[in-house]
């Protein structure tokens, strides 16, 4: 019985020299990447990072704590609007505005978590759905949020990240990259750590057996609302970054469909996996951006959009991208219920035993 274990290894992010090596390679590539790829792709990577943050946040709630939400577009909207408004109206520096917006989102998450204590499954789905719809309605009606016209994101300056004012403006996607990627990186690592320790275990315990969790001393009321708040916090940050990525926000960009998209990111990536969330956020963003352009494909694009206009759409608009998107999700859920994470695990096992 002399098997002395190093218990830190169990929770360590990088538990070997090899991993450290790859980690440093990753950091280095992330730093040089924006100097190697054209602007559109930098924009794409930024978009991916924003969606990774949402996916991680939503996964904490859905995949780890086992609560459903069809209203995360609401938190995303709160993050976007509060960040912009507190910069334009309160003259807060960007990072403070972003943090404020995230805490406002977290507060709303906490509020939304309260009915979750009594509601389960489909009922909770409806309650969160109502929340998401209500938020876009409120934002669309109130003049301060720019009404239906929306708001323009103010100019960002380097000093303006920390103080108000400043002259060195951050405009290009490349400059935004160096803002968004570190935030995404920190938030993802933090989520991973959190899920490995006490709070994360309490979340998972509630998901797997809330009865056992509470008889083991977990205050399920506290942890369920906490999961909502943390999840909303992440989504709020992502929303704030999104506003500057797009440069312009209006209520229609935060529709119910967006909440559904977020949920598909989580499911496709893999419920209850941070690494899966990263993969899900990245691939789904790529897919959405690519599918938007499906009509531009030579020959095939014309045929597909004519087909969808003629046969698949009531309004006569080509909707082939949504159809393909839906199809892909069905296929993934059908053949790999554990999502991309499950796929990754199987490949890993395959290579470990290769070539035997």
């Amino acid at each position, binding site marked *: 019985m002399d098997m002395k274990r190093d218990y830190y290894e169990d929770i360590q992010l990088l538990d070997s020299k090899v991993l450290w090596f790859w980690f440093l390679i990753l950091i280095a590539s992330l730093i040089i990447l924006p100097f190697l790829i054209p602007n559109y792709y930098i924009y794409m990577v930024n978009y991916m990072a924003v969606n990774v943050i949402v996916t991680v946040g939503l996964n904490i709630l859905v995949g780890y704590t086992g609560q459903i939400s069809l209203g995360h577009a609401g938190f995303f909207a709160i993050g976007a609007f509060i960040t912009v408004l507190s910069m334009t109206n309160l003259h807060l520096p960007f990072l403070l505005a972003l943090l404020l917006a995230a805490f406002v989102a977290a507060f709303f998450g906490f509020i939304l978590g309260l009915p979750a204590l009594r509601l389960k499954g489909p009922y909770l789905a409806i309650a969160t759905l109502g929340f998401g719809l209500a938020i876009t309605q409120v934002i669309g009606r109130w003049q301060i949020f720019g009404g239906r016209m929306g708001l323009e994101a103010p100019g960002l300056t380097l000093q303006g990240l920390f103080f108000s004012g400043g002259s060195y403006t951050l405009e290009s996607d490349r400059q935004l990259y160096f803002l968004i990627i570190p935030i995404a990186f920190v938030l993802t690592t933090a989520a991973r*750590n959190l899920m490995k320790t006490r709070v994360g275990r309490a979340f998972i315990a509630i998901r*797997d057996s809330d009865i056992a969790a509470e*008889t083991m001393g977990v205050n399920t009321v506290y942890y369920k609302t*906490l999961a909502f708040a943390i999840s909303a916090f992440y989504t709020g940050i992502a929303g704030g970054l999104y506003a500057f990525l797009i440069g312009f926000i209006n209520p229609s960009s935060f529709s119910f469909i967006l909440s559904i998209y977020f949920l598909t990111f989580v499911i496709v990536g893999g419920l209850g996996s941070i690494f899966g969330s990263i993969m899900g956020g990245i691939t789904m963003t790529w897919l959405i951006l690519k599918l938007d352009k499906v009509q531009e494909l030579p020959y095939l694009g014309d045929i597909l959009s004519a087909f969808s206009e003629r046969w698949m759409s009531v309004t006569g608009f080509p909707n082939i991208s949504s159809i393909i998107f839906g199809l892909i999700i069905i296929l993934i859920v059908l053949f790999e219920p554990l999502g991309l994470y499950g796929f990754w695990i199987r490949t890993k096992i395959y290579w470990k035993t290769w070539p035997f």
Partner: protein
Amino acid sequence: MDSDFFSVDNLAITFGGLRAVDRVSFTINRRSIFSIIGPNGAGKTTIFNCISGLYKPDSGKIIFKGEEITGLKPHRIAMKGIARTFQNIELFLRMTTMENLMLGRHIHTKTGVWSGSTFFRRGSKAAREEITHREQVERIIDLLDLQSARDQFVGGLPYGTQKLVELGRALALEPELLLLDEPSAGMNSEERQDLTFWVKDIQEELGVTILLIEHNMQLVRDISDRVLAINFGRPIGEGIPEEVQNDPEVLKAYLGEEESIDAVS
């Protein structure tokens, strides 16, 4: 002093007219093993659910270390030092054995959102706490011979092992009172012997008081200090194991059950 360690006084609960538990009273001495027996549907598990706060009894009192705990929230009761296992295993299936046991340390740990998400090295607060408690959990893993299951997801473990993991998780809470609901159900005789030995160990070495629901009379006889028999929610006999097992009314309750079983088969 001994007698006010744990007592249940006139406990009663009904479910839509069914008196699941009907004026049940008993007292458990510190560091003893107290068993509840009775035919299926007698109300044994319901008593456990009242004690651990999952059900609110209609009337009656539950006193633990001189303090009334009736109707407290389950997590409050856990924090007082009462842990339990379930008749139909309630494990966290997509956690490993180690993680299940670590959850058992919940009330003894403090790591919150901030320190839990920001640790980055061995010396960080969250990491230190994690390491200390993993060491303690490892002792329980050794005690119950769970080494081979340590890093396995419990959902894939055999039934008998799952029962042990659940026992281990309850032990990780360092309870003063441990409620075991049919711990030997589904075990083979070898596993049952080990279990008997461990339960005795937990009482003697760790000084834990044990309240046991068990259908296996051999096990009950081997380890119980006192036994309470109930039927249809009513207490029908209490005393040392031999007394209760030979009590005519208890025999009748079990006989009635056996007859009905015979009639079916």
